[in-house]
């Protein structure tokens, strides 16, 4: 039962809560969400977020396709951004129309009455007014004229009507802060910093924030407004920050290059949802980073390969359609055996598809999508913070094996945020790297007998002058060769080099559960959260289910075949039509089954649970 600290309302205790903010693209919902995320983190919760915005930059006000939403799940044991929200904030009718279906029955609904005008209702495609026709009876509805109250709050600042209305989101945030007992100061600091050049705007937003908070606080309304105390997470000790996949990936690449003592060169071309990596690295030029926004994806990857040839680590980042354009050049990197990291932030396809929606449908392209027998390394990150480690691993393998590495992430990971227990980078193992300098017996395709990697000799090194290219090369001299046996030999060694990496990566572990049994769920990438939550619950209920999650897609961990062999059933949930499934089946002849969702939305925990329940009795 809640203890009542003085001046603090009686707060309901919750294990965790899911809140979704929804409004017009212009309403600043993403900003509201990230501020709430910040404050959630600072109050020591575990959390996961899911920003879901439209493809249009700023669609006309009030339209359903212009609705922008931000969901956050916080509390303890949080592994996903949550299935059904417990609370939905709807800043206008369109937002209500689009998002209501997800709100859990009995869920809390905060609505800006002021925005429910005739015009807006019609724009959103309502005939009647849902606030009146009883269609919201299954929910707990809080109607507040946020528009008017915000205007009241800021009218003395002399802001224009338009600018004043832009403060609605901060007013709302203030109210929600009160409900979850949050401290406003960090947000106020942030406002002052962000609008340093426009103090009037900073002030107005602060007024709105405080007004929203005060509004809820005022006694007579207090009990309309439920207030909660959400459990703090039992997170491991250490220093934390919130991080998105895009940021963590950039940090990881920089860290990897620092650990190898090499410059990072990013050749990239903007594309949703891959741009955050380009943006993040463009802000880290002091850290031995050069970023080059190329004229297209082909030039981007080619410039990166050129950079690797000249002695930096070439990196290129894009999303599916852009990666498709890089295929030919990636083949050259494979043939000339130069290090290269290719980051693919996957989005819904085929073709342009749904650029702002997430998917995992580029695995085929990563593993198989090139002309010729052209093997390379494929890795996948499972969460925003995991991007950091996976990026370092990509750098390590690319350099050690003189090979291209494709790092798969996706639109969900790229934009979602989670708390990150900050590693001590000084403790991370260095990446050994030695450029060739000795002319004695040198030729460019001289191989390390153990790794089979060729010598990396940089232009500028006296005595090592040499020529390389995409034509087949003689195994023993590196010169052009059309010899039949030699082509077989080179094809074999290129394959053997990549296959050999299986001995240089960890054996596949079991994320949760026994290492043999009735059912194994094998996942990769951003399905980690939902699978892991589902497996925890199912195991609590006594189901014999284990969770195996792959970071190394190609080559696969050497023990994987045996591991999978230990389970009666292997289930592979993917946000595609079954791509990892194909690889597992052909590699191991295991009769794995797919659980496939191709909606542009992450799996719900419940979807995974029911798939398992339907296959297993306890």
């Amino acid at each position, binding site marked *: 039962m809640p203890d009542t600290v003085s001046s603090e309302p009686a707060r309901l205790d919750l294990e965790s809560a899911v809140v979704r903010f929804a409004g017009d693209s212009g309403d600043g919902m993403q900003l509201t969400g990230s501020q709430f995320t910040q404050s959630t*983190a*600072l109050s*020591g919760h575990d959390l996961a977020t899911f920003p879901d915005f439209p493809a249009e930059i700023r669609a006309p006000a009030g339209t359903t396709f212009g609705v922008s939403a931000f969901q956050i799940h916080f509390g303890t044991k949080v592994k996903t951004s949550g299935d059904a929200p417990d609370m939905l904030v709807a800043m206008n009718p369109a937002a209500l129309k689009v998002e209501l279906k997800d709100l859990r029955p009995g869920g809390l609904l905060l609505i800006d009455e002021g925005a429910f005008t005739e015009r807006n209702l019609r724009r959103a495609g309502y005939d009647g007014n849902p606030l009146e026709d009883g269609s919201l009876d299954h929910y707990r509805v809080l109607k507040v004229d946020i528009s008017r109250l915000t205007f009241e709050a800021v009218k003395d600042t002399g802001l224009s009507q338009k600018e004043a209305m832009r403060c609605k989101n901060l007013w709302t945030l203030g109210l929600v802060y009160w409900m979850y007992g949050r401290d406003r100061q*960090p947000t106020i600091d942030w406002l002052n910093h962000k609008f340093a050049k426009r103090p009037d705007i900073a002030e107005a937003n602060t007024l709105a924030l405080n007004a929203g908070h005060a509004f809820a606080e005022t006694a007579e309304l207090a009990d309309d407004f439920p207030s909660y105390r959400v459990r703090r997470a039992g*997170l491991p*000790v*250490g*220093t*934390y*920050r*919130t991080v998105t996949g895009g940021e963590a990936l950039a*940090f990881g690449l*920089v*860290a990897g290059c*620092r650990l190898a003592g090499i*410059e990072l*060169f990013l*050749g990239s071309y903007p594309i949703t949802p891959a741009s955050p990596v380009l943006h993040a690295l463009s802000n880290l*030029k*002091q850290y031995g980073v*050069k970023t*080059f926004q*190329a*004229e*297209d994806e*082909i*030039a981007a990857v*080619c*410039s990166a*390969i*050129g*950079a*690797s*040839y*000249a*002695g930096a680590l070439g990196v290129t980042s894009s999303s599916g359609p852009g990666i498709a354009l890089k295929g*030919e*050049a990636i083949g*050259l990197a494979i043939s*000339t055996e130069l290090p290269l990291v290719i980051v693919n932030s996957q989005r819904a396809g085929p073709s342009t598809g749904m650029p702002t929606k997430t998917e995992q449908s580029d695995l085929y392209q990563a593993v198989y999508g090139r002309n010729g027998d052209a093997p390379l390394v494929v890795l996948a990150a499972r969460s925003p913070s995991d991007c950091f480690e996976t990026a370092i691993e990509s750098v390590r393998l690319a350099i050690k094996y003189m090979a291209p590495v494709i790092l798969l992430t996706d639109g969900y990971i790229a934009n979602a945020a989670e708390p990150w227990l*900050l*590693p001590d*980078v*000084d403790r991370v193992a260095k990446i050994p790297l030695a450029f060739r300098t000795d*002319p004695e017996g*040198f030729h460019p395709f001289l191989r390390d007998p153990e790794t089979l990697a060729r010598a990396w000799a*940089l*232009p*500028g090194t*006296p*005595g*090592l*002058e*040499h*020529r390389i*290219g*995409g*034509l087949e090369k003689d195994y023993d001299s590196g*010169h*052009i060769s059309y010899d039949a046996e030699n082509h077989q030999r080179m094809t074999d060694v290129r394959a053997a080099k990549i296959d050999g990496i299986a001995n240089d990566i960890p054996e596949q572990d079991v994320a949760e559960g026994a290492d043999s049994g009735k059912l194994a769920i094998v996942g990769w990438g951003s399905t980690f959260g939902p699978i892991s939550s589902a497996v925890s619950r199912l195991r609590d209920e006594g189901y014999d289910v284990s969770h195996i999650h792959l970071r190394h897609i190609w080559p696969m961990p050497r023990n994987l075949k045996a591991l999978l062999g230990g389970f009666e059933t292997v289930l592979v949930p993917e946000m595609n039509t079954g791509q990892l499934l194909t690889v597992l089946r052909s590699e191991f002849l295991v009769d794995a089954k797919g659980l496939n969702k191709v909606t542009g939305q992450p799996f719900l925990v419940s979807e995974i649970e029911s798939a398992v329940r339907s296959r297993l009795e306890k």
Partner: protein
Amino acid sequence: MNVVAPAEPLKPKDFATDQEVRWCPGCGDYAILKAVQRTLADIGARKENTVFVSGIGCAARFPYYVESYGFHTIHGRAPAFATGIKLTNPKLDVWVVTGDGDALSIGGNHLLHALRRNVDMQILLFNNEIYGLTKGQYSPTSRKGTRSPSTPQGSIEAPVLATAFALGSGARFVAHGVDTQQKQLVDVLTRAHAHKGTSFVEIFQNCIVYNDGVYDDFTEKSVAQDRQILLEHGKPLIFGKEKNKGLHVKPGTFELEVVTLGDGFGESDILIHDETNMGLAMMLAHMAPPLMPMPIGVLYCNPAPSYEQSVTDQIEQLKKDAPSGSLNDLLRRGYTWTVS
């Protein structure tokens, strides 16, 4: 191979590799190779600091024959590779060798942006007005009516003018050379190398197998002097065996005409070549025999800051303004909190 002591001066033959040259006997590429090796010796290039980057084509085989670093990449993309190389190590002396198909068909976009960015490198376009390596299909520079395996009735497109395209793309150094005119070619290559920024040199190259003699109309010994005008900055645009023809601006207009010195025109009526004038360069780029002489030499040279220089400057500045701390500091900047 042995380490080369920076001192000792190199001869053209020092830039020859041990690889057998695989062009057709009589191909114009041999002459260009000779001129380039001569130029490298003249400018005192160091093997280890020189990089030749090429795409795909007969021309693109070039790097294998120059004793230096070489990267034979993929079709049309050489300028993009070269950009990555130069940005990574600005100390390198980067040369791009490309063909008319490589540079102007599949590679047009990369050429445009390399020229626009003005990365410090030399781009040598071997224009033989044909796809040599793929056995003679017409190329974007082939003249209208060119019969080839893919145009049995003759091509119907207007060819792209390499130098006009380069000017339109914002190139700061644009020149013409002829494969067999060694002295001028070496001069042009030397100037191209001296120019800081991207230098674009179109070299008229004879493909003896698939397009033999396309340039005879102005390279044939007998007509050369009357059909070529050798450009010199600040000098009047005069040409002809008797040095008695010149270019003249029709007063009040923006048009050029060929006039003969003597009948009504004196040297003062002849336009002075100004390498920094874009409009003039464009007119020169459009000149061709028989009506006008073919301009040989530097059409346009108007230096601007080079890309890799600006990149370096910007980073240096940044390091002053916002010195980088340790990686740990980087990860911990902004909002953090501690669980204890």
